[in-house]
């Protein structure tokens, strides 16, 4: 039986769940922050053959020179297999070379559409938003053109909204049949949403978010309560296994010892 950790943080749980969602030998386009931590953890555990792609240009580097602080920083370039620039990285994705994209956002709706642009009324207040967020970066490009998308989110009711302020990164759009195909998109869309409270997927037919597993300590009800829209709750929801002691050690001691992306405090 696995030796489970007893003092992991919600962020560490996200990282471990994200890592487990990744499949060995797949090409994974890495958004900045927790996705980079999860990919590195996967490479150190079950996925040594994962090929990370960074939007600034690096393909398939060894992530052994320290956690990248930026998807364009030097730590993404060590022993890379290919290294040009932003156009080349996104072109590879648009062509179909990237199996998974791994991104975050500030708000998400039931169809997996993400907002990382602004909070407030759109379009009325676009030029003077209530809160301005950093913007798409490459997240919307990954959401559009990676074959599947894995989304990492903080799980709060205001962040899980039936209607989000702004669609930055397309999920299943309005959820209508073939909505992505009809919009001209090439990737298949969101695969998993991994949060501090749950792992979710999407209903094949309605494309609405459905619960797959609750994080340790959470229940179906506590997850639903933290979600601003009605989740589909299938019969086979299970509890996600906690991180092992070794996984937590790798995160804390090997991957992000300075706590750049995985904060040190136990609870947020």
């Amino acid at each position: 039986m696995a030796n489970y950790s007893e003092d992991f943080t919600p962020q560490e749980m996200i990282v471990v769940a994200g890592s487990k969602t990744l499949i060995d030998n797949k090409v994974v386009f890495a958004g900045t922050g927790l996705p980079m931590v999860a990919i590195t953890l996967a490479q150190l555990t079950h996925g040594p053959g994962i090929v990370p792609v960074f939007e600034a240009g690096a393909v398939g580097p060894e992530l052994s020179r320290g956690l990248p602080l930026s998807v364009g920083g030097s730590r993404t370039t060590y022993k890379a297999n290919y290294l040009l620039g932003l156009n080349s990285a996104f072109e590879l994705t648009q062509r179909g070379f990237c199996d998974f994209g791994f991104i975050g956002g500030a708000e998400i709706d039931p169809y997996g559409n993400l907002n990382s642009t602004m909070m407030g009324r759109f379009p009325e207040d676009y030029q003077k938003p209530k809160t301005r967020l950093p913007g798409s970066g490459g997240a919307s490009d990954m959401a559009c053109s990676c074959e599947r998308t894995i989304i990492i989110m903080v799980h709060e009711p205001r962040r899980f909204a039936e209607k989000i302020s702004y669609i930055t990164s397309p999920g299943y759009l309005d959820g209508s049949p073939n909505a992505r195909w009809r919009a001209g998109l090439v990737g298949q869309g969101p695969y998993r949403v991994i949060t501090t409270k749950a792992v979710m997927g999407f209903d094949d037919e309605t494309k609405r978010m459905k619960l797959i597993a609750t994080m340790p300590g959470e229940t179906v009800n506590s997850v639903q309560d933290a979600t601003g829209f009605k989740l589909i709750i299938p019969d086979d929801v299970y509890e996600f296994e906690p991180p092992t002691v070794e996984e937590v050690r790798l995160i804390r001691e090997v991957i992000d010892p300075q706590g750049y992306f995985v904060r040190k405090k136990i609870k947020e």
Partner: protein
Amino acid sequence: MIEWTGLSPDEARQFLANKDKSKRDKRMSLKEAVQKFVKDGDNVGVGGFVNARQPVAIVHEIIRQGRKDLTLSFASAGLGPEYLAGAMALDESKNSIKRMEFAYFAHEAFGISPLLRYLTENNKVELEDWSNYDMSARLKAGSIGIPFIPCRSPLGSDMLKTNRAKVIDCPFTGRPIMLLPASHPNVAIIHVQEADIYGNCRTQGPMFTCPEMSMASAHTIITCDRLIEHDDMTRFPNRVTIPFFSVDAVIEVPFGAFPGNCNGLYYFDEKHTAEFRGACEKLRKGDPTPLQNYYDTYIFGVENTTELINKIPLSQIQYIQKIEPGIRLDAGYTVLG
């Protein structure tokens, strides 16, 4: 048809066709380069990516001289626009950003951009949101002389409601496809590791969108950490990333991307970045004094980057050189060139 910022495709072609593209010594002082090639009202392409190879030295000189009503074009940037926004926040009559065409303005691991919030939430700049690929592809279209380029992202997003992209039915497949208008900034400001006196650049690590930005723009100012011999440059022609005839001014500025990362030479200076960003955050919250002090010390209080670097403890400079994990440029310098 649409309103162009910077140059329209036909203007950009005409401008370049009439330009002197000869191979000549393009060294000048950074002061002179900014005087000559950065004007009030210009669309300025900001090279680098987030805080890597940001053209910090050039931005500081622009701030010292003062430029108004700039349009900034970039995919993702942190330090470059933050420094300009800080100058604007401190004295709008001297420096100002009128508009931004961009995908991301923040500092990744070092935090969000306080001044993006300050500028936008107070409605001080015009915004046009794009994705990273969009901005990169727009500059690529500009660099290759086509008025637009097709792109599949972000189809379905709200960006299409506010930016100038158009969606058409592809005449070959019948499916919707987005067309991005080319971008032709008036001037590209770019920092690289190595250049020769004619403007040929040898960049290592990620290229970001620097080559496309230079070739799309009417003018290009290059700062480089090291000026190298032309013969060293042409010994490996496959490694030249920006050709001389795309460049107007070349200035050797060691640490020209500080406190950002310059692949093979120095890693991020987290400490200095935090000092600057912290002052920006205080301004956003109502206290401009720390930012004014920062500018008085590191920008207005110095003539150039050499004087700025002299104010940083040597141990800190040695540290960011030591932890830089990119391939040592010494190999690129001594052996390659």
